[in-house]
């Protein structure tokens, strides 16, 4: 599809007067400028305007704005929510972008040029031709230890991260291990501590020295940040308490995978537990 094709089709679908990609060109340019800055300073949170979207803030508007600013008509888009292509939110975002930007929709990780996601990174290793857009509810990794935005900004500026490390130290003293399961803080390129969004620890290593560009958007908090390809992403860890990913003692009930992140499903009727791949696209592909 070309831009002209889209404009012609949009008119017939009642989108006359709407700009390509829903957002006006000025707003898209602002997002792109912020993205460029974010890529130039890996892990640094770039403030941006975050205008109103036809989705409530907190429902993926940060990711949506990045996606809409990136896509061209011949892009192929995949949207997942907690690994699932079929959840209501994912489906709605997919339909919306398809309609306002004319992109093709897919559930296949390999086929997508842009993937927007919430809480997961696909199991299949993504290539340098692809972009992963992550929806972020709370962009500030230091918020746990410092309530003041001014102070966290200062801490980032001065790389003054002792308190974050102290938080992990106290965790180990209290619980014998680091108890963070989601939003595990990572050090980007040896400089900025970053919140990788609420992905499980399982997904954190996928960020490190990846071939793919990762873009993070927090619509409500109005922050954009990025991990460019081939960037060091190191989970905060101690020499004697190394970072560990989740362990699954079983295989996926459906596809038999032993190297994917599994969701536990409890049968309401008989209370039996079973495990399925959280990444449905991956599971579908293996089961097919």
């Amino acid at each position, binding site marked *: 599809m070309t831009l002209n094709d889209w404009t012609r089709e949009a008119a017939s679908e009642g989108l006359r007067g709407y700009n390509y990609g829903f957002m006006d060109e000025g707003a898209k340019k602002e997002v792109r400028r912020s993205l460029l800055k974010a890529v130039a300073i890996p892990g640094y949170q770039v403030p941006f305007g975050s205008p109103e979207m036809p989705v409530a803030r907190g429902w993926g508007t940060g990711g949506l704005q990045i996606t809409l600013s990136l896509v061209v008509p011949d892009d192929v888009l995949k949207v997942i929510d907690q690994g699932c292509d079929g959840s209501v939110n994912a489906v709605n975002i997919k339909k919306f972008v398809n309609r306002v930007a004319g992109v093709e929709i897919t559930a296949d990780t390999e086929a997508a040029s842009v993937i927007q996601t919430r809480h997961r990174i696909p199991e299949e290793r993504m290539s340098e031709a692809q972009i992963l857009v992550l929806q972020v509810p709370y962009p500030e990794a230091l918020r746990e230890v410092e309530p003041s935005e001014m102070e966290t900004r*200062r801490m980032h*500026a*001065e*790389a*003054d*991260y*002792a*308190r974050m*490390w*102290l938080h992990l*130290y*106290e965790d*180990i*003293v209290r619980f014998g291990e680091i108890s963070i399961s989601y939003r595990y803080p990572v050090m980007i390129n040896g400089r900025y501590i970053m919140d990788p969004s609420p992905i499980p620890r399982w997904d954190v290593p996928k960020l490190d020295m990846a071939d793919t560009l990762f873009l993070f958007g927090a619509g409500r908090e109005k922050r954009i940040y990025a991990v460019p390809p081939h960037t060091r992403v190191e989970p905060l*860890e*101690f*020499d*004697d*308490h190394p970072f560990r990913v989740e362990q699954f003692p079983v295989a996926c009930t459906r596809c038999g995978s032993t190297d994917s992140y599994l969701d536990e499903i409890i049968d309401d009727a008989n209370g039996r537990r079973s495990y399925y791949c959280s990444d449905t696209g991956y599971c579908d592909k293996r089961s097919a």
Partner: protein
Amino acid sequence: MNPLLKARNLTKLFGKGCSQCLEQTGPDQETNLCPRCGTVVACADVSFDLYPNEVLGIVGESGSGKSTLVRMTHFEWEATSGELYLSKDVLPENLARQLADEDDPYTQNLLTLSSFQQRQVRNALMGMVYQNPYLGLRMNVSSGGNIAERLLGAGWRHIGKMRDRAASLLEKTEISPARMDEPPKNFSGGMQQRVQIAKALSNNPQLLLLDEVTTGLDLSVQARVLDLIRSLQREFQLSLLVVSHDLGVINLLCTRTMVMKYGRTVEAGLTDQILQDPQHRYTQLLVASRL
């Protein structure tokens, strides 16, 4: 021997300041409040040298500017003007290279560095103990964690080694290492002060700043804390800047002493000379008022 630290004309104004501020305030005017513009002249044109392994006292009543002086030296409060130089010898090589010319034995003026660089200097060689332990400690974090925080800031990444270090520092400051996982809020005032000292020592500082560390403690507890500071000073060959309003503390710890009043140095000399042959009216009053 060359000074470890050279402070020149340290000045701190609270307020917008005017051309009259310095002339209209000071010990002769008996005020630190500029009558023309209302600016508080907390500290004006104060200079001193601190030598390696030396204990320098700063004595004066509250409002004399002695705490301001220490806070500026610790980069906590930005000086209005003035210069601070450190001997290059005591800095780690990478910092020394950043902060000083090759043939200059001293750093550039530390007060003009970015706060990031100031933090590096502070982490590398300063320790601070406050009168109020709430300023120096995180009361809800374990005592070991309080000590570990400085180590973490200096790049330590081994829990076991940090805990060993914290335990040995707590032992040195006479706190049972068995209590290292308790938060300081559980401790008495004297113990909190000792945890603070342990924390201040964690990065092996060359320079320890003590701001009224025994004020408000029971006499017997004061004595223990002072004895501890004395023995640590000797053991680690520390340079100490001791701020106190108490001539007893100054006499016990310091070889040289500066007397401050209304933000100015009114007198400086050997501690025994200051105490037995005070020159300035204010010092004489201070000495005569000793209990």
